[in-house]
């Protein structure tokens, strides 16, 4: 008990120390709120590790604009309300120069009103379109949107001559936002949604929903919109039921873990994802090749873990900020914001970023590659 009290006191004094106002020659303070634990941990964890790794790397290389970087990270435990509180702490108490993060859309949207009011650059690592549509002055994002994923999949379907899609989405924020965007953009792409089922993130069996889908005449493909372990269970269940329809996943499973968990059942699954995941097989002339291979090597070297696109989003966010600071020549928030908005031709793990006053993400469909799992490996489908 006494020990616990001591650690609590230590933490308290730490908090108090952090309250000392920043001096002029102080490091550039990078704040981040990530879901390092909780249901979204498999996204937030690589993000947190990436930030930690690259802040160290940048500092080892002499920092940015002659100043060291200092990273302040909080774990919201995948709870959007906590993200809101930590954002306040970053803004008011830690007085950071930029906020990276919001692993999930919920956490991001919880922080948006705060950063808009505090007028501080904010680069989100979450997927949904709502983050940048409508455009919010101080809010940017690095990952591809769920709408882009849907559009990429629709394009691939049409190429293969299919128009009828059975949708199975997760009841998580990611899945439901994806479901909404998929349904919304289907008509325009000439795709008909013939089934609209959901499953819970912690479900251990999804055969009931799949049996229903199996019974629907005319379905030509299945799209699963979810994150983490759920899609792996769905994939196994599809194999078990002997459903032979082409199977699409979202960019939410673009990590080695998905293949590992699904095993042989993942053969032939297609999904849109960033080039990062197929770094090794990219043609040498691909503009992203040096960036993605460099990041992949650094990440797996440092953490002995397979690289995922999620960590890449954090890399992109950090580098876009650093790039903007260099161009602006200052950490003045308004000037850096303008510089971020003026980002052009920035090559990140997610693609080539071209931001503008109306586009705070700056990625187009070319940033997405259609991948297919062959022989337990990610391969380029086109």
């Amino acid at each position, binding site marked *: 008990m006494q020990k616990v009290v001591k650690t609590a006191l230590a933490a308290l004094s730490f908090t108090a120390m952090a309250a000392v106002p920043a001096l002029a020659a102080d490091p550039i303070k990078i704040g981040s709120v990530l879901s390092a*634990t*909780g*249901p979204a*941990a*498999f996204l937030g*964890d690589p993000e947190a590790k990436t930030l930690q790794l690259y802040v160290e790397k940048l500092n080892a290389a002499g920092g940015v604009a002659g100043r060291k970087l200092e990273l302040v990270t909080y774990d919201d435990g995948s709870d959007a309300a906590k993200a809101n509180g930590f954002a306040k702490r970053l803004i008011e108490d830690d007085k950071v120069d930029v906020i990276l993060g919001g692993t999930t859309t919920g956490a991001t949207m919880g922080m948006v009103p705060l950063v808009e009011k505090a007028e501080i650059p904010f680069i989100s690592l979450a997927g949904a379109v709502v983050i940048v549509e409508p455009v919010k002055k101080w809010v940017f994002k690095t990952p591809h949107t769920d709408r882009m994923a849907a559009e990429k999949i629709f394009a691939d379907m049409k190429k293969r001559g299919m128009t009828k899609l059975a949708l199975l989405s997760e*009841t998580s924020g990611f899945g439901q936002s994806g479901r909404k965007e998929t349904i919304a953009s289907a008509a325009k792409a000439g795709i008909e949604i013939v089934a609209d*089922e*959901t*499953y*819970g993130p*912690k479900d*251990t*069996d999804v*055969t*009931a*929903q799949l*049996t*229903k889908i*199996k*019974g629907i005449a005319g379905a030509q493909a299945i799209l699963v919109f979810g994150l*983490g*372990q759920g899609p*792996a*269970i769905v994939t*196994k269940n599809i*194999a*078990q*039921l*002997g459903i032979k329809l082409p199977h699409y996943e979202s960019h939410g499973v673009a990590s080695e*873990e998905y293949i*590992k*968990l699904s*095993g*042989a*059942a993942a053969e032939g699954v297609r999904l849109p994802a960033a080039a990062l995941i197929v770094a090794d097989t990219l043609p040498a002339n691909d503009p992203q090749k040096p960036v993605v291979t460099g990041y992949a090597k650094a990440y797996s070297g440092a953490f002995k873990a397979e690289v995922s696109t999620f960590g890449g989003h954090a890399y992109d966010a950090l580098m876009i900020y650093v790039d903007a600071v260099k161009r602006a020549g200052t950490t003045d928030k308004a000037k850096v914001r303008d510089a971020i908005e003026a980002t052009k031709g920035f090559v990140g793990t997610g693609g080539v970023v071209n931001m503008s006053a109306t586009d705070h993400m700056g990625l187009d469909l070319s940033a997405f590659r259609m991948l297919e799992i062959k022989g337990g490996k990610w391969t380029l489908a086109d």
Partner: protein
Amino acid sequence: MSQFLQLLFSGLTVGATYALAALGFSMIYNASGVINFAQGEFIMLGGMVAAVLTAAGIPLPLAVLAAIVVVALVGLLVEKLAIEPARDADITSIIIITIGVSMIVRGVVEVTLGKGGRALPHFSGETPIAIGGATLLPQSLWVMAVTAVVVAALALFFGRTRVGKGILATAHNRLAAQLVGVDVKKVLLASFGLAAALGAVGGVLIAPIATTSYDAGLMLGLKGFVAATFGGLGSGVGAIAGGLLLGLIETMTAGYLSSSYKDAVPFVLVLVILVVRPRGLFGLGPSERV
């Protein structure tokens, strides 16, 4: 028809795992009157330990056995360190303690074994068995068969052995059991070890189908609690029936009604059952009026 059969298979597979979870709840409830909110973590721990060991190259049967032993030891430890010192606390405090224990177990697994999901190899391959237009994984047969064996073994244990009878007697009347020479302390310890081992068995069986991760325990635990309540807390038959029923209700709801509300339906039903039969379907005991 084949759709119904498919849903039936899925329901029974899921239901069997719920039944194992519910049995764990009931066993501890019987011996101590405690609802162990950490039961789900025992299930998670079983799956995780086995998955980590197989990934490290240890043969599956050995890994499974080791996982069950490890989790049983954890169960004993939990009883010794957290439950026994608080024997006289009231229900609310004990619920908080078990919730605290579940956080500790989850946190330790998170820190030591990582946050990623893990899968365990299927015990006998992944080639589905086709029956009447529906398919069934060999692993599902494992789940159902082992559940049946466990139930039979438990029946023998409680009916024939001294320790088993002691647990039953303690459940019935702690004081009386003490008077006839049952060592109530040992009974409590044994019931936690046994319940943890049961949880591990469930976790190991379901891990190939459902995969597992450090945070898989909470939902499984809640489902087990629902199943145990369905059948009536403390009733072995009730736990089995409640588990299977819960699994069937979930899959049938997802298959025929709405997959969005399949998780809500069991909770609505459990409320209805509690209103109609305040002690669950198979719950016994006199109505408490005094």
